[in-house]
């Protein structure tokens, strides 16, 4: 099982699909954030799989960059969420329409 590239790409594709569904259909912004993280992790898995299959270190180095960017994105995003919650008192994407006023 672990000698074939396809066996690592397929779980990553499933993870990406799950994250995409969550972003499209969930209402709460924290859950949407988690789903964005899952899509990034799927990209990381694909990078690692291809780097391992082609025996090329550069794909592995990219995982490091993705993790750094994901970490800073989470920090800024959650700060915005807490701020938004202070103002609007909800995190549902149905009810937040401050920019529409």
């Amino acid at each position, binding site marked *: *099982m*672990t*000698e*074939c*590239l*396809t066996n*690592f*790409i*397929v*779980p990553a*594709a*499933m*993870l990406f*699909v*799950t*994250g995409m*569904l969550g972003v499209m*259909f*969930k209402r*709460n912004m*924290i*859950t949407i*954030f*988690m*789903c964005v*993280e899952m899509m990034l*992790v799927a990209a*990381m*898995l694909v990078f*690692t*799989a291809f780097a*391992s*299959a082609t*025996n090329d*270190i*550069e794909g*592995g*180095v990219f*995982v*490091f*960059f993705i*993790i*750094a*960017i*994901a*970490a*800073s*994105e*989470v920090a800024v995003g*959650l*700060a*915005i*969420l*807490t*701020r938004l*919650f*202070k*103002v609007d008192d909800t995190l*549902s994407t149905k009810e937040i329409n*401050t920019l529409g006023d």
Partner: protein
Amino acid sequence: MQDVLYYVFCAMLVGGALGVIIIRDFVNSAMSMLLSMLGAAGLMLLMHAYFAAFIMVSVYGGAVMVLFVFVVMLIGDKLEQRHWGKRLALFVVWALLCALSGVFVPSLLDGAPRPMPSAGVLANINAYGACLLTKFILPLQVVGVLLLAAVVGVVAIAKPEARGKHKSDML
């Protein structure tokens, strides 16, 4: 042994991800995502990318998930209402899309299974560091600047409101 581990990690990865979009309670949902991240780290271990698996566990399992749980506890938002029909529909669509990706991704990869080396260059931490500090030195510094900008931005966003301003003026 490796095959068993492969299936266990895949189940953790996909099952945890499904839990994130199905479970209603945010803390349980975050724990489910933690399970998923640990599964991803396990798959990276099976690909002999030990350093990637390590930073995956320490950054995602440690820092990011703690941040998520912290914010969930801090905010304590109202739970979504129970919509069994919506959840069932979500599950069905998820299962269909997963089946589709299971069918089509192998054909996208030409159907010819590429072999994975038993212990490739990813296991070599020296090569990793050398590549990071020679070829990718500029992106590395840009990432440093990005992290600094993120820290400054978070402080600017989260600092208490200035006195005399109305609440809604701050956004």
